[in-house]
């Protein structure tokens, strides 16, 4: 089963700490200095309506519409998650249109090429942009660690099995009670 980060609306206070944590974790050395309007592109978003406050991000679907719709094969299953091979992304936005949760974005970043030992900027490069579960971050998911109210947690096969087992036990007990 693919892992994903889930938010608990009964614990979320809408403070957006997770958005900064996400932007920092994917932004160079993780210190705040580089953050600006241009590069503030969190992959987790806090939503507030009249009655709900929560964070939304990629579900890492088992049969992912984004992956199925990608003509370039840039979206892959890796390490129990849905990941993007940015080298292959052409920015066609199929993934963005097909995502039922609105959590896939397509952004452009300055394209950089190395030539004869010199780094050059060559226009822009498209990137499919979504939660990658901080897969390259040793300390794990930055948003989960930073949340002041513990409203975020990783759902994986083990935690799902445990919560289902608990529910089944409850069901059994309540069946006896009836």
């Amino acid at each position, binding site marked *: 089963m693919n892992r994903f980060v889930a938010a608990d609306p009964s614990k979320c206070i809408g*403070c957006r700490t997770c958005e900064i944590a996400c932007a920092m974790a994917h932004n160079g050395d993780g210190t*705040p*200095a580089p953050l600006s309007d241009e590069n503030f592109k969190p992959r987790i978003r806090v939503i507030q309506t*009249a009655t709900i406050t929560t964070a939304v991000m990629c579900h890492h679907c088992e049969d992912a519409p984004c992956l199925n719709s990608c003509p370039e094969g840039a979206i892959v299953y890796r390490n129990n998650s849905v990941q993007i091979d940015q080298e292959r992304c052409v920015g066609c936005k199929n993934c963005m249109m097909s995502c039922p949760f609105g959590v896939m974005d397509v952004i452009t970043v300055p394209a950089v090429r190395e030539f004869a030992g010199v780094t050059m900027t060559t226009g822009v490069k498209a990137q499919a942009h979504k939660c990658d579960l901080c897969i390259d971050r040793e300390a794990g998911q930055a948003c989960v660690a930073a949340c*002041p*109210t*513990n409203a975020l947690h990783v759902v994986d096969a083990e935690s799902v099995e445990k919560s289902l087992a608990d529910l089944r036990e409850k069901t059994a007990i309540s069946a006896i009670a009836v």
Partner: protein
Amino acid sequence: MEKHMSVCPYCGTGCKFNLLVEGEKIVGVEPLDGVTNEGRLCLKGHYGFDFVNDTKILTPRLMYPMYRRSRDKDFERITWDEAIKIAATKFSEIKEKYGPDAIMTTGSSRGCGNETNFVMQKFTRAAIGTNNVDNCARVCHAPSVAGLAVTLGNGAMSNSIQEIGDTECLLVFGYNVADSHPVIARRVIEAKEKGAKIIVCDPRKIETARLADLYLPLKNGSNMALVNAFANVLITEGLYDKEFVAKHTEGFDEYKKIVSKYTPEYVADITGLDPDDIREAMRIYAAAPTATILWGMGVTQWTMGVDVVKGLSGLALLTGNLGRPNVGVGPVRGQNNVQGSCDLGVLPNVFPGYQPVTDAKIRAKFAKRWGVKELPDKIGAMVTDVPHLVKEGKLKGYYIMGEDPAQTDPDLTAVRESLEGMEFVIVQDIFMTKTAMFADLVLPATSWGEHEGVFTAADRTFQRFEAAVPPKGECKHDWQIISEISTAMGYPMHYENTKEIWDELRELTPIYYGATYEKMEGLGYVQWPCTDLDDAHGTKYLYEGNKFQRPNGKGLLYACEWHPPMDQTDDDFPMVLCTVREVGHYSCRSMTGNCSALQTLADEPGFVTINPEDAKRLGIKDKELVYVSSRRGKIITRAKITERTNKGAVYMTYQWWIGACNELTGESFDPTSKTPEYKYSAVKLESIDDQVWAENHVQELYATLKGNLSGAVENASELRAPEHA
């Protein structure tokens, strides 16, 4: 990488973390398992440190003393020797000519620490000879301090932050815990998960209202009526603790008489609430084995602030929810050391430890220790008195340390006039603020992160913090600067370090005597009162054994009649403006506005939130720029349309320098605490047709403001030759 233990410089939660330092630069934080935060931090704690590094995003750090020969001249850089000489000469002249009461000073509720506040009030009282010393608690929780001091005998939170998670009922009144104290919000959620009932009284649908078992969206300006109705229900339904009231309180008969009129039906029109909901709220509150009341600025920033605080403490007294664990009254302090600045006596009526200046014995004790013949016995002026005292010609000199009244005080036009009306103004800060632009002498102090000391968290918890990096430029510690000015004025003060100051404080203040530096080593902490050297952590909750700190040991039940707010809406100004706070910014924003992450999350001109129906009626679209005006001023800001804002009211956060809501607020004050009625100003909103022009206009205003602030510092970078008279 070096690590230095610190306490967060923002809200009053008192979160502990390590500052991570590389090459004399703070590069990150690492949460610690402090007593109040238990390893958690909010966005300001995690990402609010880079202002120390002088990022110059909003305004530059002050690096050297600056002076201007006359008000029409630019600032010039001068040496410390000259700066100290000028400060001492000018203050001595004013004192000589007009008397000591013509000078006013401020302590600071922010990063300076308790020791600096001690030195400031000592300087004011012993060197200048006046009690004109105050701090910005005046504009926030002063009503809590004043109100609780009368009814219970102690102005602080009765119980501890960690107890909030274990209470069985929370009555949250005018307090947006999610935006004000995110790490305390975790405790509220914890309490809820353990089964606590939550009652929220707030006109705005704040985050806690979503969690509430019962949400009472009262009308803006009806607090006193609702609190009286709560008392009425407790009494008429016999829900109060008769034994507790008989044994441990006084004033019940008079109290009962006043609240008898305030039936839930009587207040239905005033509060806009269903009488059954008011009854239900008190049935829940009274039934809980342990219940805690939490409040914030929604209770205090009113002309009836002190009265409502007294009223809320009455509910706790009626139900016996005091003097034991997991109960009590909680005015949760907003700035990291606003509890500390009050504790240290930067208040016009008390010495450190709330020892009254009007008590001859107390005065004699301080006079003896400080080596002066006598200390002033007259209660001094409050910061909100400054505008009218200047007008009356009574105040001539102002020493503002670590505060920014030209951003945070009400009716900014009046504030600017008062600063201009002074003969001599010193601003001692870490940043070039809007207030510093009005100074004659600007003194650069070390920032949090560059000095050590003790802060007091909202729940009376003393915690030490360390210096992580060396001082920038020519910055000196606040307490050193004050000591040097004092010495030059003929009252020598000299301290080697903050511990020496702290020990002088302990000696003079029995309730802090047991709070030694040694006990506060590392993650150590002490909650005052702590009179005993053998007592490791001090007092977790006040009033044990139901002994209240009043002359006869009993709590006072107090009620008074409700009256409507002062500024009234009419056809010209039909809506109510209530000022609130931004979760990712802090106070006047000079610190968080210079933090790249926090500034990226939210920037000028801020927002005015408005209900969709009101927006539609006014032709205002979401995220468009609008004008907001009151009888006192007019500003431009951005509309944010949300159903969480109640109809007829708009809300603005007070952190913005362009969309500055305090251009609109007025000078109506609580008669006792002189706290302004920030929560109720009559305003009107107007849409702007040409949005392209408006966006450019905001950018121009912002660029000009930033240019003026950085220009004031940069243009003065060359050292001026000292004046030889």
